[in-house]
């Protein structure tokens, strides 16, 4: 393997890691701040992809589909928090798992009823459909670079909102002591509702952005769910910064594992998780 191929593989790794981060960031927020184990997070990713597919064919433009889809996802998040999740904060984790597992089944069945079980493709917007030639046989699709760009922008935005704004301060405060925030006269329920909607929107956005590159198919949500939990656990529960580190680390280990140790590549990510948990049981970044 020459130096040039290594560089390209590095690019693959970073690009995969960034996409993982986008899905996992919502999971870590909901998990860390609200203490909810949300197994249905993968379903939000799937819903995003299917929203992109149906709205893009309705409006004829992926941009409109993403804008509309984000609004709808936020609305879905607000509704679910109001109708279901707000009743589960004080309950046992096992009951939360039951609720969110039930949601997976409901969303999958609804998807099957409304849109069927076929595999669909979403067209890459014309402006981003080119490929940049890297070697004489390999070129890199511009859309993949665009995806990485969007992920970086969102990550930066998320960091700024949580660390530098009043709402962010409320979110952080709510995460460490719910009762104290309430007794200071802040509406913690509203904060939770917003965080949940944000989490849903992030997962759904990841699905929408990934749809043109990965196509849209039944069961796509469960595939990302497991690896997202690995990201959250390695990164440290509730830490957005940790999720970013962990996602990039997994991207690297997975990609170079496939290149250098193809026979055990499926195992490496989980091995990494085990080693990190032995070394730092609370994950890479401990919440303060």
């Amino acid at each position, binding site marked *: 393997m020459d130096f040039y191929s290594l560089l390209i593989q590095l690019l693959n790794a970073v690009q995969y890691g960034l996409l993982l981060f986008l899905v996992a960031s919502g999971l870590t927020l909901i998990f860390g701040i609200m203490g909810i184990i949300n197994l249905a997070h993968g379903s939000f990713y799937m819903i995003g992809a299917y929203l992109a597919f149906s709205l893009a064919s309705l409006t004829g433009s992926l941009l409109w589909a993403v804008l509309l889809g984000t609004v709808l996802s936020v609305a879905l998040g607000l509704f679910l928090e109001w109708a279901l999740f707000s009743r589960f904060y004080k309950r046992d984790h096992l009951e939360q798992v039951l609720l969110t597992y039930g949601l997976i089944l409901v969303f999958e069945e609804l998807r099957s009823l409304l849109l069927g*079980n076929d595999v669909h493709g979403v067209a890459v917007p014309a402006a981003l459909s080119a490929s940049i030639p890297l070697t004489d046989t390999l070129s890199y699709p511009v859309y993949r670079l665009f995806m990485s760009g969007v992920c970086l922008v969102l990550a930066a935005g998320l960091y700024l909102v949580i660390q530098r704004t009043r709402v962010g301060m409320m979110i952080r405060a709510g995460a460490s002591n719910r009762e104290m925030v309430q007794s200071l006269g802040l509406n913690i329920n509203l904060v939770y509702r917003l965080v949940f909607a944000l989490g849903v929107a992030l997962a759904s956005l990841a699905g929408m952005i990934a749809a043109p590159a990965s196509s849209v198919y039944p069961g796509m949500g469960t595939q990302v769910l497991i690896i997202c939990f690995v990201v959250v656990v390695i990164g440290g529960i509730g830490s957005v910064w940790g999720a970013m580190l962990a996602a990039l680390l997994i991207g690297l280990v997975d990609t170079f594992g*496939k290149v250098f140790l193809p026979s055990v590549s499926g195992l490496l990510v989980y091995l990494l998780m085990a080693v990190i948990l032995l070394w730092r049981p609370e994950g890479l970044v401990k919440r303060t």
Partner: protein
Amino acid sequence: MRLHTSFRRILGAAAAALLLPAAAARADQPKIRVGLMLPYSGTYTSLGVNITNGFKLAIAEHGGKLGGRAIEYFTVDDESDPAKAPDNANKLIKRDHVDVLVGTVHSGVALAMAKMAKDTGTLLIVPNAGAGDITGPLCAPNIFRTSFTMWQSGYAMGKEALREGKKTAVTFTWKYAAGEESVDAFKEAFEAGGGKVLKMMALPFPQVEFQSYLTEIAALKPDMVYSFFSGGGAVKYVKDYAAAGLKAHIPLYGPGFLTDGTLEGQGEAAQGILTTLHYGDGLDNPKDKAFRAAYLKAYGSEPDVFSVQGYDSGQLLAAGVEAVKGDISKRKELIAAMEHAKIDSPRGPMTLSRSHNPVNNIYLRKVVGKENKVIGIAAPALADPGRGCKM
């Protein structure tokens, strides 16, 4: 004269009286109980439905009866879940006492069904699952298959690649039985004819992050790539392959599953890809035309390769039951008739190998628009070697 008439009347009545019990007995003849164990929920729902439609169409074309006996269907949704397979098969065999079991799509479930059939002696017709073992080590006189083995399409493509002058290849698939059987068969044919497989790559099922493998393919620069993926994975793979700019330099080949039922999603990226399978679009034979028309009329949708396999399962059962005139207790004759059946299939003529797997043409198909157009025969009347079958 009067006497004559009444005599005739008496004679007629007597004859009728004599015939009546026979006729009544025929009407009372128990129905043949057919157990359909197929996926009616989950990812493979449409496959299960199309196989069922095809099967029932074949029976309907025999007037709904085989050897004078009506057919009664028992259905179980196998959910494509191997863990539930023994239970589900038991429901049909022990509870419903079916005479013949038809199923299924998922190879893991079908393997469990084959084991049950082998133990209980129930007649089994497999209308899809391509695991080599079903007509290999697990083969039995009462187990038949009307679909394919992964070996057949892979081997045929190995031959075809040599004909096209390819010298080197890379194979890439999911790390599971179907994928490995397919690429191994390709390698067997390709290397026997002097080709060289540079690298065999495999990705854990059902992961779809292909980018690092595509980068490796670009670095290895083989003459061609042979890949098995299916469903959602196939859509993403074919699109990623094209987006990585590989398609223009290193042609992609595969078994038919790479582009079957997925062209809607693959679109432009799939155009021109060559695949091998026992069926395709635009087969120029009258049986296929008649079948397609009848299927469209009966169900309002176009048939696919799974409909054909279901239809041929019905035809194969008909060939056996008709030969023993409905008396399925004559097992030896029934099985012998099925073994030697010459099925006039929409895919072209089909017979069965010694291990009860179809012997038929494997076609070379090219993706044109939304169709897998048949452009030639990659291997005529190709029989699976049935390795491990002691029958």
